[in-house]
């Protein structure tokens, strides 16, 4: 899956879980600082990403995913 596909899939999840407008879900955006996503919504995003992309995001890895770009990188490097 290309980075563009991952980004658009992630944007769908962000819209559904946290009400983020898809146009705002760009790689440089910080989940907590820019998109107002709290720690529990991050868990919901992680489980939705796991379901959608077939990757596992353990809780200790979740703490390292701070921006949309981090999430795209994570999915890209972990997808089978």
């Amino acid at each position: 899956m290309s980075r563009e596909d991952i980004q658009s899939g992630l944007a769908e999840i962000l819209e559904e879980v946290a009400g983020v407008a898809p146009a705002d879900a760009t790689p440089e955006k910080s989940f907590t600082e820019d998109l107002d996503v709290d720690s529990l919504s991050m868990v919901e995003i992680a489980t939705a990403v796991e379901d959608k992309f077939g990757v596992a995001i353990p809780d200790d890895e979740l703490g390292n995913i701070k921006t949309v770009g981090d999430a795209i990188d994570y999915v890209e490097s972990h997808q089978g």
Partner: protein
Amino acid sequence: MTRIQLRKGAPGARIVGLGDYRPRRRVTNDELAQAMDTSDEWIRSRVGIAERRWAAEDETLVEMAVAAGGKALAASGMAPDEIDLVILASASLRAPIPGIGPQVAYRLGIPRPGALDLNAGCAGFCYSLGLASDAIRAGDARNALVIGVERLTDVTDMSDRSTAVIFADGAGAVVLAASDEPGIGPVAWGSDGDQFNAIEIAAGSSTMTMAGQAVYRWATTKLTETLVEAMERAGVGPGDIDVFAPHQANLRIVEQMTKKLGFGDDVVVARDIVRSGNTSAASIPLALSALLESGEAKSGDLALVLGYGAGLTVAGQVLVLP
């Protein structure tokens, strides 16, 4: 060889009385915001709590348990000497010895019942309910008293805003009696001991820590199967459920579970956490009594309950409201 004889059990058990105790002091989010870096908006959006009750010095675990247990006994119309099993669920005893079940029973005038404390964290009430119901069905008890009581403020670090805004105090109790028609379904229970330290009072510490994200993920992804199991074992479907009363840990978990089970507006969902905070083993009887008092739920309604918490432990069942 002499054969061991067993007692004759009952076909089922049901709840015949419910009682609660809410501490006098009401603590609002605004009051907390004066003492720590938080706000009403932050607390409501993260955990859904508007206010909670904090116990005063004289509202001890024993006193709150006696108050809730006494109300449950009075509601059941049963005499104390008809009770022969008392299970007290709590995770906030400061001293592990002695358990307080026997003392609470004594204070209620229940003569020499089997009495014990049970610690399964926030799942304690549902574990106790399952064991007490089984004891009645096995004939080891005629009637039983189950109490959930907590003073979580005793084990909360008031400088840790992630837990200080959540945990609270209170007690709830039910009297169970033998019945021909089962009023408590088979328990569905389980544990995930690999996450033993997700909620803990670490050795040498006197306060509780919680890995919020890990617990939230566990509660919103793994526990739906226990809820489905509790319904399947009782032979009921989601469409038969009138009331859904999961442990009041976080309003967002309540909403996620409700959504995953597909419950619509016709199911009354307990949201007592808004007024009571997280009272661990006391939260389910407190939530049920609030729903019955407000008239949102009524006697005879079929309720699905689920306790879950430290251990990690989970237990749930279907029951008929008294």
